[in-house]
């Protein structure tokens, strides 16, 4: 039987970890949406050097582990004198990593809008940017939302990587509580439940949006 007394007695610690997990996820989401959009624009803009930069970012970041990126912020940059606390280092690492995936989601959403739309907008006198802003992006947003939702779910799960660098998240507090109580099994079952409280509703929401989008087509 699970010892619920552990949950009750250490509720405050669990809540602190839970709060930090949410905070890191939301901050990293906002950051990676901004960075990801810029990189997506780099990838599709009709300017070659920008395309290369965008592609290089996406391909490089997607193919290396998140742990490595977080370590770069936590240990690599401090080695050259740029210091962050562990929470900030972890959140920045999450942001840089997730931005590559978000950029891909946005790019494929924009490219899913039929080419004729851009051509029609351009030939009716709109500039490239106007066509993007008023014709392409409004259509792309609908396509992009479900994959972005999936990225946010991954982001919440990936935020556990903060635990590796003592980043004050749920994993870190789980570790703390288990070293206080000398209990691991029950402590981590409760940690798991806290993650599920976040990820299951998100998964259901994304599933709902996906089905609705499928019907709308």
């Amino acid at each position, binding site marked *: 039987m699970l010892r619920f007394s552990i949950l009750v007695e250490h509720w405050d610690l669990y809540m602190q970890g839970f709060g930090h997990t949410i905070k890191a996820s939301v901050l990293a989401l906002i950051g990676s949406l901004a960075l990801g959009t810029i990189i997506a624009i780099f990838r599709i803009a009709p300017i070659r050097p920008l395309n290369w930069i965008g592609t290089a970012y996406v391909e490089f970041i997607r*193919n290396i*582990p998140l742990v490595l990126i977080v370590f770069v912020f936590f240990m690599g940059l401090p080695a050259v004198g740029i210091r962050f606390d562990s929470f900030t280092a972890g959140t920045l690492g999450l942001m840089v990593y997730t931005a590559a995936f978000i950029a891909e989601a946005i790019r494929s959403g924009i490219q899913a809008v039929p080419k004729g739309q851009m051509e029609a907008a351009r030939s009716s006198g709109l500039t490239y940017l106007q066509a993007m802003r008023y014709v392409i992006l409004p259509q792309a947003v609908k396509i992009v939302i479900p994959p972005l939702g999936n990225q946010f779910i991954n982001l919440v799960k990936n935020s556990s990587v903060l635990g*590796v660098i003592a980043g004050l998240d749920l994993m870190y507090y789980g570790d703390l509580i288990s070293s206080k109580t000398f209990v691991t099994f029950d402590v981590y079952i409760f940690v798991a439940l806290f993650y599920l409280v976040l990820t299951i509703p998100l998964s259901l929401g994304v599933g709902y949006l996906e089905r609705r989008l499928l019907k709308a087509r």
Partner: protein
Amino acid sequence: MMDFAGAYAPAHLKFLLQGFLVTLEVAFISIVLSFIFGIVIGVIRYTKIPVLSQLLAVLVETIRNLPLLLIIFFTYFALPEVGLKLDKLYAAISALVIFESAMLSEIVRSGLQSIDKGQIEAARSSGLTYGQTLWYIILPQALRRMVPPIVSQFISLLKDTSLAIVISLPELMNHAQIINGRNVNFVIPIFILVAFMYFIVNYSLSLVSRRLEYRQR
């Protein structure tokens, strides 16, 4: 300061390669086992075997919505508490297999569902049993479609092995951190090298996956 010459001493390079071999070994064993479990779970869910199918659905959804890091912690630190003690290698492989089987079962299930229902009807009306239809008609076609997403999943898996650093599995990230511990001037050169090691393998895999996807169109 960065000490490239010191960081890339032959002994260090050898040590990193040893770590990388463990990474590749763990990733390979895990993907093979996960593939087998993934097919079994995917087929059970596709054929909607009553009770078992619903049970697996709950299990798969729960596991998919948890951070892999938590599962690694669990198999290594929590299972001994209930009498199941695994060494680092087996704990890491079990965690990866638990997580990836859930992921792959979803790939298998959607691969199976993407095969036209007419195929089943045609096979059944030409006298094949349901089992034969699945084995000779549906699975072979679905497997071909599953290859690209499975390769992508293998790339994630290869990156995710780095999470086993929390249980000090002697894989690439762990060996990198051991070298980093010797001299702070090694940190950046080592991270650059390690990033390229992951990148080269994963990028090559992603090119293979893209080629396969292209050929199928």
